[in-house]
């Protein structure tokens, strides 16, 4: 998938001006947040359940190599084939080759951010194999060539008229309609044909269980179940951090995942796959391929700060809590992962070179950190990235500061550590600034400071500094009795 994070501001402006986006953003995150809060209250002790989830994810990221080896051994004992992919190219090449060997002219896919990250659809298309997204929202987004707007509702912002037109153009719909249910039914019929004669399905993985070698998927539509049940070949792609130690841990994470994502106690369908179909079964895959994807994650684990990001379970709760996402929506985040989740993941996986605005689009309000069922400290992580960026960290591709900015900060530090210079400087700045005052407020000084003033004003600066006034007052105050030490 193309990385468009460099256009964050530009895309954000377009979305801020888009009345439809704004209408959905006024409803969707608030509704999902309220449902999440209500669902959490069904826990006997919501805070303990939240903290317990943090502990499971915290343990998983510390025990990664051991858990992955255990997972691999158990998955293979179950009859699954485990492939370790260092990067997107390796994973894509494996899937393309497999699809060719199985004679698949097309494959179907369950909604998975990991295959968005891989850019799998493009890789398959290049090999002449069509990849059909089968989650309704992803299907619409795919036809319109749009990135996901929200992890839970990838195309929820798209006008019905636009869906009608693209469905008519692609032969999904026979008679034009703007009824959402009729449009959904048309997609059902269209994709059902794909599922019936399917040779190979591709899904992501929500949770992998080390102790049992099981991969787990959560959904509401049933498309993932079709992907896992109908074809003879099934590929499950998991990012390597998805593993948890035990089935009991997985069951707890399912409880917090479903509540955090959609406010449900459980998604309509949760499937646990331990290997391919067994002898004598009527359906289910004859081959289950599990791809363990690194793509930069093992490097993330080396640094304790970025290792924390590997806790993420992709529930999307942080999107609904974020005041920035709540204004700009999913498009500006420019890759597979949006919201605070994307702000901490994308720079770690793709470097800082193009993500300078992404890591700064945060007010540090901490709502994402509070709501996160995995225990990620997003604001601290973003401060860490900003630090790495200004330090021009070579590993993360930090950009450093411009010569002008470096000079300004050096000057600021120098003046600030020399009191006389500081007082002189402050006196000059007061004079200059006050010269631009109108009716007691300063709203512009020079072109260079326009950005700062675009959303705030300064009051007229007083003639005397605090120190001046303190000294003037000292003369008037009674001399205090010295207390000997």
């Amino acid at each position, binding site marked *: 998938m193309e990385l468009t994070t460099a256009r964050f501001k530009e895309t954000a402006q377009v979305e801020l001006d888009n009345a439809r986006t704004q209408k*959905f953003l006024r409803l*969707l995150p608030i509704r999902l947040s309220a449902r999440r809060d209500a669902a959490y209250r069904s826990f*006997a*002790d919501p805070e*303990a359940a939240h903290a*317990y989830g943090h*502990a499971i994810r*915290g*343990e998983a990221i*510390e*025990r*990664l190599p051991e858990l*992955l080896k255990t997972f691999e051994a158990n998955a293979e004992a*179950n009859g699954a084939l485990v492939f*370790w*992919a*260092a990067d997107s190219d*390796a994973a894509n090449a494996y899937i393309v080759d497999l699809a060719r060997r199985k004679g698949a002219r097309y494959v179907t896919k369950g909604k998975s951010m990991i295959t968005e990250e891989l850019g799998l659809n493009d890789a398959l298309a290049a090999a002449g194999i069509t990849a059909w997204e*089968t989650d309704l*929202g992803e299907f619409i987004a795919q036809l319109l060539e749009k990135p996901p707007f929200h992890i839970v509702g990838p*195309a*929820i912002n798209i*006008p*019905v008229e636009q869906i009608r037109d693209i469905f008519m153009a692609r032969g999904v719909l026979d008679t034009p309609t703007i009824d*959402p*249910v009729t449009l*959904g*039914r048309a997609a*059902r019929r269209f994709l059902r044909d794909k599922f*019936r004669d399917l040779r190979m399905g591709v899904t992501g993985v929500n949770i992998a269980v080390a102790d*049992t070698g099981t991969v787990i998927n959560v959904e*509401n*539509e*049933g*498309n993932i*179940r*079709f992907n*896992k049940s109908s074809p003879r070949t099934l590929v499950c792609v998991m990012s*390597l951090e998805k593993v948890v130690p035990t089935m009991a841990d997985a*069951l707890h994470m399912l409880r917090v995942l479903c509540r955090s994502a959609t406010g*449900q*106690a*459980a998604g*309509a*369908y*949760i499937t*646990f*796959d*331990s290997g*391919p179909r*067994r002898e004598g*079964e*009527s*359906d*289910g895959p004859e081959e289950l391929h599990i791809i363990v994807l*690194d793509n930069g994650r*093992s490097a993330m*684990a*080396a640094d304790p700060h970025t*290792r924390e990001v590997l806790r993420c379970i992709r529930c999307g709760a942080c999107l609904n809590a974020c005041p920035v996402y709540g204004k700009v929506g999913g498009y500006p985040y420019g890759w597979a992962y949006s919201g605070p989740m994307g702000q901490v993941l994308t720079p770690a996986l793709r470097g800082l070179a193009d993500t300078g605005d992404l890591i700064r689009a945060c007010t540090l309000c901490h709502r994402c950190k509070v709501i996160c069922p995995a225990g990620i400290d997003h604001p601290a992580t973003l401060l860490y990235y900003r630090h790495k960026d200004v330090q021009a960290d070579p590993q993360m591709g930090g950009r450093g500061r411009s010569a002008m900015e470096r000079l300004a900060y050096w000057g600021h530090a120098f003046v600030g550590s020399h009191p006389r210079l500081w007082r002189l400087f402050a006196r000059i700045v007061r004079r200059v600034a006050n010269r631009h005052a109108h009716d007691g407020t300063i709203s512009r000084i020079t072109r260079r400071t326009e950005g700062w003033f675009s959303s705030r004003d300064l009051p007229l600066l007083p003639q005397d500094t605090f120190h001046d006034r303190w000294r003037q007052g000292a003369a008037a105050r009674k001399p205090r009795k010295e207390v000997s030490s």
Partner: protein
Amino acid sequence: MSDDARNAILQRLEAAVPRPLPSRPALPPAPEKALDRDRLQALFIDRLTEQAGVVYPVADPVALLETLARILAEEQVARAMVASDEVVAPLGLADRGRRHGVEMVTPADYPDRDRYVRAVFDDVQAGITGVDFAVAESGTLVLVHDARQARLISLAPLVHIAVLPAERIVPDYETAMAAIYAGECRPGQITFITGPSMTADIQGTPFKGMHGPQKLIVLLLTQT
């Protein structure tokens, strides 16, 4: 190639300096565990109904078959696919169906996989299955797939009718999974079903039957 990648990935992960594992806070026991059978059953019905499932309690197999016949008539089912699991197999549905003008088929009636798949996709209006467990905490049906419980029967037809003996209702997921994994062989697939197939992907308008069943009907057999 994969071996090299595997070793390189594991080496990098092993080079990361591990920190002490976080301690796990005490979790209170699931409140469902304190409920008696009647209240557990009532809770299960409430939770599944909240998720748009429909539950019909039936007192005995005779009442079950009567209710089933009524539902099949209401849903205008001419042909249904039936699993051959230990719950529905003893009900003798093929004979019963014939008397009511409903053809009951099983995957074994088809000569190969492709023809069974076509049938379950296109030729049946309902799928009838037993249930291995039902979980009260979320109103969830647990189906263990094996030679007698095909995966597509509870998925491809527009109506899924599940037969649940009341004694199979358990308080939480852990109880169900411990029982399933206690067996010698791990099942290839286990499915948790909590309501019909759902989506709200177009403009947030919710509707049922997106890919899977539009209706989930549970016949809850309270006495056996």
